[in-house]
């Protein structure tokens, strides 16, 4: 039996057909059964979740209205604040840190009556594409437990794919929602930059970070995005652009819509039978009535390099705050303030975070600034313009989400560049600040999911969701990973 959707659960709880308390209990039972092998959750918030669910049930019993996500058990990535709860960002340096306030997106989620049930694993400080950079746990891909779930929101994707929860929040800086969604066969939405508040999200690269939902189908993702999107004066980059109703037009289809493929996205470079998967996805879009066109975005080829300069430069500045003085790990025995900084950071950060801080510090350092940061910033500007031009010729653009399906745990940990290159199709979207959705587009020959990435103009998140829904209806993908059935 397929698990209920977030939409179906919320409707049943609102109508009184189900209780929120039973729903949350069922989620904990499922987590208990499946998470031993998947390893998505770092902590469960059993008491608080049950209490919140009981509050929802009693409000319903009193005849009070309930929110659109009434009683939906939801997992939070370990970089989002929920007041009073520990938050580690997958790192030892934040051991013991308790959030003093709640993130803007989480506030909205709770206001919509979703029930946060726990926090899920991620690559340390969201730096990684496999979840293997987590200092806290190993998360496995529910489709094949020897495979990586993708990253950095690997815990979010794995928890949803294993039907532990119908909904999770992730964050995406260069593909961290979309790539794990593709690897785990779920839907992942990176909204337009500024669509969702970043207040209370631990910063990695502030000009790129964005929170978004992961769900088992497009309607649930749209429902969740509608709940968390909207202005927040506490994040100066959060847009005041009105949030449209994503669900209302979602079944309208894409008949006659121009959908572009990008000439410079070379399908010859795809791994295994991912090229065939992408071709079949294009055929499905054509069957949906889309008019396929080809556009040119020459600078997409530069996106990984550009991204790793900009993101790591920002990270080197953002992560300067973790120095052992105000929160998190402090090294013992330091004799001076400087020594405390260096010792705490050296003990607290894992190798990938150190590598990236060093790379970012290098790119910003005197003598190299213009050749690295300056150049990357100029190219990102030009890339954004090229995307704007491409959207003159097509309403939406599509690419594979990743060059291939999930790779084996351990396969790329010693080769950071190879790991970075799995972001080749997701980083351009991030640099352009546009919305990108990964929707499952079938299985490869190993039986592992592949993702189709659908891109739209800034704040046309709804158009991308509508296309993703049409595609999902046409292809009828079912997320049923055998190892966790």
């Amino acid at each position, binding site marked *: 039996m397929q698990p209920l959707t977030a939409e179906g659960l919320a409707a049943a709880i609102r109508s009184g057909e189900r209780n929120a308390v039973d729903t949350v209990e069922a989620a904990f039972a499922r987590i208990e059964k499946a998470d031993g092998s998947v390893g998505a959750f770092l902590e469960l918030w059993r008491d608080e979740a049950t209490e919140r669910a009981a509050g929802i049930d009693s409000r319903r019993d009193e005849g009070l209205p309930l929110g659109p996500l009434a009683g939906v058990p939801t997992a939070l990535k370990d970089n989002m604040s929920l007041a*009073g709860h520990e938050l580690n960002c997958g790192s030892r340096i934040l051991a013991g840190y308790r959030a*003093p306030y709640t993130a803007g997106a989480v506030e909205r989620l709770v206001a919509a009556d979703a029930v946060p049930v726990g926090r899920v694993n991620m690559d340390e400080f969201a730096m990684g594409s496999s979840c293997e950079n987590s200092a806290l746990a190993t998360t496995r891909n529910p489709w094949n437990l020897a495979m990586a779930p993708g990253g950095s929101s690997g815990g979010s994707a794995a928890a949803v794919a294993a039907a532990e929860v119908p909904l999770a929040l992730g964050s995406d800086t260069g593909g961290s929602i979309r790539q794990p969604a593709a690897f785990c066969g779920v839907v992942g939405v990176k909204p337009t930059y500024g669509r969702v508040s970043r207040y209370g999200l631990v910063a990695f690269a502030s000009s790129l970070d964005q929170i978004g939902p992961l769900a088992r189908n497009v309607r649930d993702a749209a429902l969740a995005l509608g709940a968390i999107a909207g202005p927040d004066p506490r994040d100066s980059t959060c847009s005041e652009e009105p949030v449209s109703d994503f669900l209302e037009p979602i079944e309208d289809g894409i008949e006659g819509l121009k959908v572009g493929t990008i000439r410079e996205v070379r399908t010859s470079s795809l791994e295994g039978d991912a090229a065939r998967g992408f071709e079949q996805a294009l055929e499905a879009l054509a069957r949906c009535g889309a008019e396929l066109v080809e556009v040119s975005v020459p600078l997409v080829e530069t996106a990984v390099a550009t991204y790793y300069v900009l993101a790591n430069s920002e990270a080197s500045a953002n992560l300067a705050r973790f120095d052992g003085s105000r929160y998190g790990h*402090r090294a013992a025995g330091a*004799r001076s*303030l400087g020594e405390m900084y260096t010792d705490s*950071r050296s003990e607290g950060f894992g190798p990938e975070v*150190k590598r990236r801080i060093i790379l970012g*510090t*290098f790119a910003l350092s005197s003598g190299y600034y213009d050749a690295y940061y300056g150049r990357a910033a100029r190219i990102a500007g030009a890339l954004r313009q090229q995307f*704007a031009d491409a959207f003159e010729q097509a309403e939406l653009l599509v690419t594979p989400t990743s060059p291939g399906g999930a790779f084996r745990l351990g396969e790329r940990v010693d080769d950071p560049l190879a790991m970075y290159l799995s972001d080749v199709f997701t980083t351009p979207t991030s640099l352009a600040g546009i919305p990108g959705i990964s929707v499952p587009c079938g299985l490869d020959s190993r039986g592992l999911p592949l993702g189709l990435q659908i891109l739209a103009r800034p704040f046309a998140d709804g158009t991308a969701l509508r296309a993703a829904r049409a595609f999902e209806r046409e292809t009828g993908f079912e997320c049923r990973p055998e190892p966790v059935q």
Partner: protein
Amino acid sequence: MSLGVEEVRRIAELARLRISAREEATFAGQLSDIVDYIDQLREFDDGAASFEETETASDVADNDLPRPAAAAGPADLDETPLLDQFLDNAPASLDRFLLVPQVKATPGGDE
């Protein structure tokens, strides 16, 4: 360009990181590969566009009205003054101040 062990050590110091000799060698190799890859950007940079000029988002200013600091959360937390919540996260504090090692060097000290 390649990054040598010396260069990696110098940058790590700038970033307040100490890395072991083994890590230095590994990082130098890995970072050289990454920087080589990044150097392909040279041929795409015509020096024309700037990041700022094509910015799609615009800054939003806060209205600066006073509001309670912590909204959602367990009841007992709401009753704790915000300063105490922050100090609870501090590795060391004294009389509601953060406690850190000596900031200024003593004569003859290391720093």
